[in-house]
């Protein structure tokens, strides 16, 4: 690509797109708001079993979406595993790093449990909790634990599909009961959502940590996780 194209033509074109985008956004933000999903979504939150509107969108109104989201995560993990074994890990961290990791990993796991529970009525939920679990795994990997605290391959495979498994089982049981796939009865919704979110949290955390390793787990040089 010539300098003229990349420094003159392309920025001009992008600036034109930007003007159109900003104009559209301005009109959307200032114009008369038509019927929006927000009012409908907020009005029916009490029936969803959780009082946090974002969680009710994720796990109730748009549960299909979240199920497919988890499938995307699993597909990415399978893609990474299909590329071969992970690169050799980092060397063992020094004493100070080890001390910090020993403190932080349990705290992160605790915070993930809190996030999972608090998601029912305040900002939080499966994705945030899963991200915290994943970051605990990344921290372990950086400190020189080659398996990033992940369990044996067999258990790892089970954990990585746990979110989809919980979703599909709940959906199929509800279907058998004649309610329709993922149509929760309001009196059970809270517990079904909690069940699915627990599975999803573990699956997301394990997937992110395993994705960080960048390849199929190699357990030949196993070091016990703390």
């Amino acid at each position, binding site marked *: 690509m010539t300098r003229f194209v990349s420094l003159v033509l392309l920025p001009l074109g992008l600036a034109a797109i930007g003007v159109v*985008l900003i104009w559209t*956004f301005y009109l959307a933000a200032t114009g008369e708001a038509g019927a*929006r999903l927000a009012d409908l*979504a907020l009005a029916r939150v009490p029936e969803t079993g959780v009082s946090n*509107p974002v969680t009710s969108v994720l796990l109730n109104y748009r549960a299909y979406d*979240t199920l497919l989201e988890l499938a995307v995560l699993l597909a990415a993990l399978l893609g*990474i595993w299909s590329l071969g074994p992970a690169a050799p890990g980092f060397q063992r961290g020094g004493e100070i790093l080890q001390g910090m990791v020993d403190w932080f990993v349990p705290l992160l796991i605790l915070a993930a449990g809190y996030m999972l529970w608090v998601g029912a009525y305040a900002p939080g939920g499966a994705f945030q909790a899963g991200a915290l679990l994943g970051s605990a795994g990344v921290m372990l990997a950086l400190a020189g634990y080659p398996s990033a605290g992940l369990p044996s391959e067999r258990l790892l495979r089970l954990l990585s599909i746990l979110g989809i498994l919980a979703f599909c089982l709940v959906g199929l049981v509800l279907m058998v009961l004649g309610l329709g796939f993922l149509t929760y009865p309001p009196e059970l919704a809270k517990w079904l959502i909690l069940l699915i979110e627990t599975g999803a949290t573990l699956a997301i955390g394990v997937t992110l940590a395993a994705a960080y390793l*960048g390849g199929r787990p190699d357990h030949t040089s196993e070091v016990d996780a703390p």
Partner: protein
Amino acid sequence: MISTQLFYGGGGILLLLLGLWSFLVHAPLLRKLIALNVMGAGVFHILVATAYRGLDTPPDPVPHALVLTGIVVAVSATALALAFGQRLDRDDDR
């Protein structure tokens, strides 16, 4: 405060365009990947800005949920792309 919303959304559009420019201009895979992530951050900004409905009304939860899942998917897609790039590098060395 409509200006806050416009500022935030405009910032998102700016990030989107900067990311798109970098994605088109730079050849190395890693730079393209970083550019894609910057674009993604811009899209998330725009979505969060559209969810804003004034200080007195609660924000629209639907775009918030989209951003939440989008972040995790963006991270996993980045990890997959990095793994592909690493494998390509390894094969080139042979």
